[in-house]
């Protein structure tokens, strides 16, 4: 029996878990996938929004601005990269210049600091690759870029170190309130019971919600296709470039990533399929066409991968973070679409505060607020490298040549709390396989390491859990392990 069960180990669930881990409370996170950050949190724009988009007075606006402000300290505490590169909303039609003003005013009301409307000349001076049609721009210096994997993983690791349990490959199939007054969660891995449940199930939040409530919820899966470009062109723009927003969202952006790639996307296509992360030719074409409206001569031949993510969109376009009316002690964290990543620290805090008040939680004395990330070798001097290699020779072996990731970093990723168990798990923690060759070179080598370190046979090693096995059998009909 747990005090609190959090369903979903995405950025919201992990933020809640980390905040709860400050208190003397028994928490377990149930995740249907084999790792944290496997759903919406892994495929998005990786942006920390300034907060001028959401309607004044909305929870979205409030948590976005707050989450943004919390990000510097959080990134420092959790040892993850975060950069305030600033964002620009670009206007390319003279008749729409008023729209920038509207955004500016909304941003000011939302409490976004430092907003400024730029002239065409000012905008081009800051971003020479903007379209020749640019008429003006709204500049938000607090806009930032972050790695969504590292943010989620770091919060999960820190929560885990502070006592939160994580159960992976555990899918919640039904939830009932028992006569004992507890929530009984039936999963593919047995039953779990808890006093409180936090529903942070992303695109599945409606399904989970509807298990306990008569007030039915409907989440629309709004797909976004993206293209990721090589680091060679990572500096094509230095700010995050947005078009002017429409009712479908913030539009197709062009941004550097915190690791130095260039990212363009997303589309916004409503699909009603919770697993529908397949890109389409149409979607990818649209990404390119729309991105090209604001940024000229995009170097599309440098695309290294494309992907799609799903936003958990609610008709009312607002975060729903509340106790379910007809299901006491069941808290929804639903409709967390953009700016969910930006808001996540504030979401975690809000939910933890709710539970603290309801449950009368006391802060732990021994809460560990900081987490040390994987020791990165990138950018180290020769002396620093040799220091590291002397301590652990595995840092002398490069496994991923594109991103220069050493075996030492991969070992760290595997053996730390909630360590990597799959190729994608290694990739999201270390970036091995995320470069221009997209794991063609390093995947056999990473498999060798997973095999040795975790005792997994090659056939058991997966790309990302489930049935995503890389190889099926030995050649020559040999049975593995024999």
């Amino acid at each position, binding site marked *: 029996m747990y005090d609190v069960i959090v369903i979903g180990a995405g950025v919201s669930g992990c933020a809640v878990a980390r905040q709860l881990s400050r208190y003397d409370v028994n928490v377990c996170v149930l995740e249907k996938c084999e790792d944290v950050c496997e759903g919406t949190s892994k495929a998005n724009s990786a942006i920390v929004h300034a907060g001028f988009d959401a309607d004044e007075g909305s929870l979205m606006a409030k948590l976005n601005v707050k989450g943004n402000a919390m990000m510097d300290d959080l990134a420092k505490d959790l040892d993850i990269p975060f950069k305030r590169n600033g964002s620009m909303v670009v206007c390319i039609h003279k008749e729409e210049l008023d729209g920038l003003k509207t955004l500016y005013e909304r941003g000011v009301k939302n409490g976004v600091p430092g907003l400024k409307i730029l002239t065409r000349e000012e905008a081009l001076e800051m971003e020479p690759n903007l379209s020749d049609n640019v008429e003006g721009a709204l500049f938000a210096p607090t806009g930032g870029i972050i790695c969504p994997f590292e943010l989620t993983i770091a919060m999960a690791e820190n929560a885990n170190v502070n006592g939160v349990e994580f159960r992976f490959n555990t899918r919640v199939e039904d939830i009932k309130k028992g006569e004992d007054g507890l929530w009984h969660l039936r999963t593919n891995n047995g039953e779990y019971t808890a006093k409180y449940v936090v529903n942070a199930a992303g695109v599945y939040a409606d399904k989970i919600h509807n298990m306990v409530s008569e007030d039915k919820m409907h989440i629309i899966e709004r797909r976004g296709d993206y293209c990721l470009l090589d680091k060679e062109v990572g500096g094509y723009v230095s700010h995050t470039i947005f078009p002017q927003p429409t009712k479908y969202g913030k539009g197709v952006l062009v941004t550097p990533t915190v690791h130095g790639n260039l990212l363009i996307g997303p589309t916004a296509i409503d699909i009603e399929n919770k697993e529908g992360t397949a890109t389409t030719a149409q979607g990818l074409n649209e990404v390119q066409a729309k991105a090209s409206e604001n940024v000229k001569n995009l170097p599309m031949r440098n695309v290294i*991968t494309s992907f799609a993510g799903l936003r958990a969109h609610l008709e009312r376009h607002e975060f729903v973070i509340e106790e379910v009316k007809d299901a006491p002690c069941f808290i929804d964290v639903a409709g967390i679409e953009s700016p969910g990543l930006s808001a996540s620290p504030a979401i975690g805090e809000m939910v933890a505060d709710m539970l603290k008040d309801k449950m009368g939680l006391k802060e732990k004395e021994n809460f560990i607020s900081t987490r040390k990330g994987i020791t990165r070798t990138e950018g180290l001097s020769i002396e620093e490298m040799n220091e590291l290699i002397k301590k652990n020779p*595995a840092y*002398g072996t490069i496994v991923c040549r594109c991103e220069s990731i050493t075996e030492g970093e991969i070992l760290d990723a595997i053996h730390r709390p909630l360590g990597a168990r799959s190729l994608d798990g290694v990739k999201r923690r270390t970036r091995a396989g995320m470069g221009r060759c997209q794991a063609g070179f390093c995947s056999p080598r990473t498999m060798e390491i997973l095999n040795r370190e975790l005792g997994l046979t090659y056939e058991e090693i997966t790309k990302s859990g489930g049935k*995503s096995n890389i190889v099926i059998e030995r050649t020559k009909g040999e049975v593995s392990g024999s």
Partner: protein
Amino acid sequence: MKTYDIVIVGGGPAGLAAAVAAKEAGNDSILILERDHELGGILNQCIHNGFGLHTFKEELTGPEYAYRFIKQVLDLGIEYKLNTMVMDIAEDKTVTAMNREDGMFQIPAKAVILAMGCRERPRGALNIPGYRPAGIFSAGTAQRLVNIEGYMPGREVVILGSGDIGLIMARRMTLEGAKVKVVAELMPYSGGLKRNIVQCLDDYGIPLKLSHTVVDIEGKEHVTAVTIAEVGPDRKPIPGTEERYTCDTLLLSCGLIPENELSRAAGVSMSPITSGPVVNESLETNIPGVFACGNVLHVHDLVDYVSEEAKRAGQNAVKYINDGCKKAENDNVIELVATEGARYTVPSTINVDRMDDLLTVRFRVGDVYKDSFVSVYFDDERVMHNKKRIIAPGEMEQIILKKTQLTEKAGLKKITVKIEKE
């Protein structure tokens, strides 16, 4: 760390041949840096036969061909370091590398030979729509898994791209018990050798669909099916021509990209056509003393030509050192221009004073040409006009220039290579 005259980056066929040639040319201070745990490079996983007909007048498998050179390297006592990744090449030819035993170290070299080879174009760069499940491999990655590690990626296979690795893997997977359902090729012709189409596909009844591409990949966790469609002359899929193949594996053999991140960072000028360094008659890049050979320079069709080219790079590196590491004089330089069907030439410039008596100029064409002529013009005068029954993009072409030809023609500024109908 010991210092060396010549540092060779890469211990594959190019690096090995360059090392042997440099040693034989009289230099005793050579170091090969290889990132893998053995010498031989990609040849070690190319266990099929067909290598070495030009070099050794016999048909060898990849590992056998590699071993001929490895043995020479061992016999000649040439030094090498395995499991060693070169991290940086500075413009002053200081090579920074790293391994477990030595840590990170720097070698100030007099000459550097770039022999890093190439890599495969990944799925992402092809912009194939659909899911991103397990079961999608570049053909070379699958080749390593099957041939070196001894594991099967799957049982039912679709292959996109009819480059030689894709064709070879169609046969390898078939022989190891998989069913290869189809090979789709975007272009109206295959980039692979005819012999491979016959002996890897036809022998096993595997259909080759030209002007076809993959338009959808199904399967959230693992590939379950792939849809291919015919493409029009614009290489865009034609609606209504889709065919769905259930499969658990998609192999991609869609082109090779010279691996020039180190070269670029060193300040080496690149050709946008070959994605390899721009070199002169000595296979020297714009940085004096930095030479390039093999697939890092331009993607070759036969390894024999890699070895031959690398030999020249090795010899020229020694010559450069023996001549006092001087920058080449820039007068008397002839520009080589590829046009009208010829896509590029290697080299791009010729300094007549430094050229050998005979110089092989290699190039590729951009389309299939039948009954056409390879023509060479010295300025405006046509000096070569060789009829060929067929010229195809999959095969490298060559012309041989004589030094005497060039010296006779005083004031020659430009040599043009083109394909002519008559």
